[in-house]
């Protein structure tokens, strides 16, 4: 379980997180929604241990990520898989080498076993046979799938998705969501996803949390969020334009 308690973060006097509290149960898919610039990516980076908060704690299975450093953080991270917004594939490596990289660097598996698991991971995301291509030679949707394969190849317990469908067409968005759902059912990982995809994410999320102006303003199952009386949530999920902000 991931517990976030009273997370505060400011950058040069600008308060980005103003006391975020959230619980992510094991084996669930929790989706963080919210407007651009609302602090979602900063919040996710706190969960990854890439940013230290000014105040508050991130506790992963009883270990406070914000109070440890060095190898202890790496131990927590070794249970993570992360799909970055742009994929963050290593452009000097082929897609296959990208997927093989965490196995090659973090395990003592033999070369043949790594190759087998890479083929399996790529096939799992529907990309069998593209292992020899470089990231720049494949489409945006394929890059996202390779990133998902790389994040899952080590069989992590917790997988973070930072806007995994940004920049994709609606068909690809759905296909990536279905893929994540199918992989989640098969591998039973805990998923934390930052997304803008309304209403598609309501079909895959167990819990949806709305981050607004540095705070979680509403959290609950998709049906509850969709029926929320909170004007901020209603405005966001209906895509209503606030005339005062134009």
């Amino acid at each position, binding site marked *: 379980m991931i517990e976030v308690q009273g997370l505060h973060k400011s950058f040069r006097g600008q308060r980005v997180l103003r006391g975020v509290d959230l619980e992510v149960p094991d084996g669930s898919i929790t989706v963080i929604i919210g407007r651009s610039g609302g602090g979602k990516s900063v919040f996710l980076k706190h969960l990854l241990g890439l940013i230290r908060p000014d105040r508050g704690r991130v506790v992963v299975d009883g270990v406070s990520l914000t109070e440890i450093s060095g190898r202890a953080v790496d131990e927590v991270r*070794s249970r993570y898989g992360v799909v*970055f917004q*742009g994929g963050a594939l*290593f452009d000097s490596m082929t897609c296959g080498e990208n997927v093989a990289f965490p196995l090659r660097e973090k395990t003592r598996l033999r070369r043949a076993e790594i190759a087998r698991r890479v083929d399996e991971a790529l096939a799992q995301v529907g990309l069998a046979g593209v292992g020899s291509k470089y990231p720049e030679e494949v489409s945006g949707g394929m890059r996202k799938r390779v990133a998902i394969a790389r994040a899952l190849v080590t069989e992590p317990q917790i997988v973070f998705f930072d806007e995994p469908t940004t920049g994709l067409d609606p068909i690809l968005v759905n296909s990536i969501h279905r893929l994540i759902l199918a992989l989640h059912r098969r591998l039973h990982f805990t998923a934390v996803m930052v997304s803008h995809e309304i209403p598609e994410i309501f079909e895959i999320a167990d819990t949806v949390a709305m981050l607004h102006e540095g705070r979680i303003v509403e959290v609950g199952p998709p049906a509850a969020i969709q029926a929320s009386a909170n004007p901020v949530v209603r405005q966001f999920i209906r895509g209503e334009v606030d005339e005062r902000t134009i």
Partner: protein
Amino acid sequence: MADVPAAVLRPFEALGEKVLGGLESLGRFGAFFALALVTIVTPPFKLRAFVDRVHYIGYRSLIIILLTGAFTGMVLGLQLYLTLTRFGSEAFLGPAVALALIRELGPVLAALMVTGRAGSALTAEIGIMRITEQIDALTVMALNPFRYLVTPSILAGILTFPLMTAIFDVVGIMGGYLVGVHLLGLSEGTYFGEMQTFVELDDILTGFWKSLAFGAVVTWVCTYKGYYVGRGAEGVARATTQAVVLSSVLVLLWDYFMGSVLP
């Protein structure tokens, strides 16, 4: 006591902020190198990344080193011959060319050339990896980005800069030979014979230590600037420019410092 008006304090606050910012950058710059040194002496060592960096910094800079080395030697041969002739000392052309190259011009010019070619590319590459979250990807895989990006580059700099300098020196001496002997008519025996008499091991060691230090300084600056790049393409462009300028200035400053300390 009456409060000092904010308008009076503002310039002092701005100055204080600048000084503190500068000190913070300097501290981070030093800590960066210290961390790189720690990862150099602690396993695991990333041999593949190191070999790749040697190829990137060393092998791919060979052409520019050969070209600049040859022409520097030729210019030295020509100018020194004309100068030495005035004193009737053209017999000393060989040692003059060799000493100028081995002690000063070889290490400095080779370092500046490699900075322009490989250092800038190193900053841009690491900078792009930073802004496309590839460095974050390494970190969240519980892998230390220093081991893959910084340490191999600094080690490769320490190894390849002396080699590049040696090549620069040899090619430069041959350039001086070409002009002095084949173009201006100095005897081959005089050119090389006097060189053996006057060039000592200390001269070669001076050049060696300089090039070794320049290798560390240039790769340190260039990896640091890439690692802490600003936002977007503009940030990468700025970091690349800063890396080349700072490396070049530090090479020249360090050259003077080492030149005055070494025998």
